């Protein structure tokens, strides 16, 4: 059962919470447009000395993500960023997977490099004229990683599928989001590319970003002082942010400023996707007295 937050209750919720995890798109901003109250809320929580982290399925590196946030006026540091590329790289390091074939934008290679993981990019194997039978497989590659790429080609998909025809090569993706909002439209998210490869290879990808909990598990390893009971996840998407928070065993707030409507929340039958609380926007966190 979910509860619509009333403004009095929010104050006491903020009081009890020591660690806040924020999704960004649809919570702090919507595309190019900053959401009213976002900057003030983050500043207020920082003044209250709360621990703040920003967890995104975006495959930018933490450094790039931090820059983006600072450009928007948020006073944040790299250590507060949890991007899916960073989560994937940490996962590989911890599981001793140190040779990757990736199809991604520039953020993922930066994080892989930071962790000392060897990688090659799908495009390196694309020969011209294209001949799948002349491609030499690099036997050192242990896993494939898919992340949202602003540009990929048919040949990249062919190369990735070729590597995955070997069942020993593991199959990972940063996230499975079917769409990516831009302005009043949406375009294919990483999930679209994942579906293409899953269909071609008849294999299922292991997702490392939300709603999987790796990002939170790794965070607690870096910050053992974080307690589930004092942590709150704030997001706008039921099947990534809220499912993630629920799976981590932490309380969740769904904001209506992004992709989810009040109707969807009320009608939701899947307990994994029902937020603990919901409210209109982040501005509701601001105490009028502040």
């Amino acid at each position, binding site marked *: 059962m979910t509860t619509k937050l009333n403004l009095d209750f929010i104050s006491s919720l903020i009081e009890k919470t020591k660690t806040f995890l924020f999704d960004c798109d649809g919570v702090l901003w919507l595309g190019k447009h900053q959401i009213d109250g976002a900057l003030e809320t983050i500043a207020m929580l920082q003044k209250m000395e709360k621990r703040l982290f920003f967890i995104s399925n975006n495959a930018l590196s933490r450094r790039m993500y931090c820059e983006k946030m600072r450009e928007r006026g948020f006073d944040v540091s790299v250590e507060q960023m949890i991007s899916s590329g960073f989560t994937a790289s940490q996962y590989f390091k911890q599981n001793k997977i140190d040779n990757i074939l990736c199809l991604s934008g520039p953020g993922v290679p930066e994080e892989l490099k930071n962790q000392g993981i060897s990688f090659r990019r799908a495009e390196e194997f694309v020969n011209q004229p294209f001949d799948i039978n002349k491609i030499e497989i690099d036997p050192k590659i242990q896993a494939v990683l898919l992340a949202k790429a602003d540009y990929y080609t048919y040949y990249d998909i062919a190369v990735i*599928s070729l590597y995955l025809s070997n069942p020993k090569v593991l199959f990972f993706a940063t996230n499975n989001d079917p769409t990516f909002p831009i302005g009043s439209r949406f375009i294919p998210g990483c999930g679209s590319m994942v*579906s293409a490869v899953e269909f*071609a290879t008849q294999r299922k990808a292991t997702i490392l970003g939300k709603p999987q909990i790796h990002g939170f598990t790794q965070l607690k390893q870096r910050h053992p002082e974080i307690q589930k009971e004092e942590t709150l996840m704030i997001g706008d998407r039921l099947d990534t942010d809220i499912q993630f928070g629920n799976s981590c065993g932490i309380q969740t707030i769904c904001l209506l400023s992004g992709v989810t409507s009040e109707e969807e929340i009320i009608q939701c039958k899947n307990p994994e996707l029902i937020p603990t609380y919901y409210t209109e926007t982040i501005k509701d966190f601001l105490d009028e007295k502040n």
Partner: protein
Amino acid sequence: MAQLITKKDSQTILDSFDMFLFDLSGVVWSGNKMHPGAVELIQKLQKMGKKVLVATNNSSETQINIQEKLAKKEMNFDIEDIYCSTNATIDYLKKINYQDKIFVLGQKGITEELEKNGFNFITAQEVEQQNLSLEDVDLDDEIGCVIIGTDQNLNYYQIGLTCLYLAFPSKKGPRLYIAPNADRVYPVGDRTIPGPGTFIAACQTTTRRYPTIVAKPDPFIFQLIQKRFPDILPHRVCIVGDQFDTDILFAQNSGIRSLCVLTGLTSESMILENVKSGSIVPDFYCEDLTCLL
């Protein structure tokens, strides 16, 4: 059901059918690799006076390309005896009397045929050359139909554009969505390359839409064949193919029979597993086509 055919069965099999439909990829060839017995069998059947037709799903080729490729390997076919998904798509558009503009994710094959038949269309590649972002590009309201074909030149931008046309209706309403075929992969030599089914899946995840498929397994092509040969008896027609979800399913949907050759994407163990589980199986199967010589 799923009877293994060897040389001793060849005369019985040949006598059972008046018409044979041949799939090409995985049956006659896989890229440059020729499969044993295929050329000789086609020549033999033609000599015996059987009606021999080609029914292929590849949508990057036209009837003329295919006729030329076959002739180079000593298989001679009249143009009308080659059924490929590109030409079937044109037949389908004519059947539904489609008159408006078309958006095509694809090149060669389908675009040549659309041009030849006087259809008004624009390709994803042409729109890409306008250099506008997916956020800013104008969606042409004249476009009432999206065709998703085979295109090795496709990329993320073109898929994104296709999704925009599928997800956002024109003033007249949602656009028609057609695919010549939805093959998952094509065999090339010993490996495979992604087929259009892969990109149909990509668009389906983003837009939740699935196209009308014109070629196998849809029985549309057999309906075209029956129109040409009204006296043909479906149980005396056999498709020679290599895939469950195109060739064998097409046979079931059309009421004809099927011979699955193990030179393509299907193995004997896959057939036996399907027998056990009660899933789709061919009427007959064989190692390769030398068994019918």
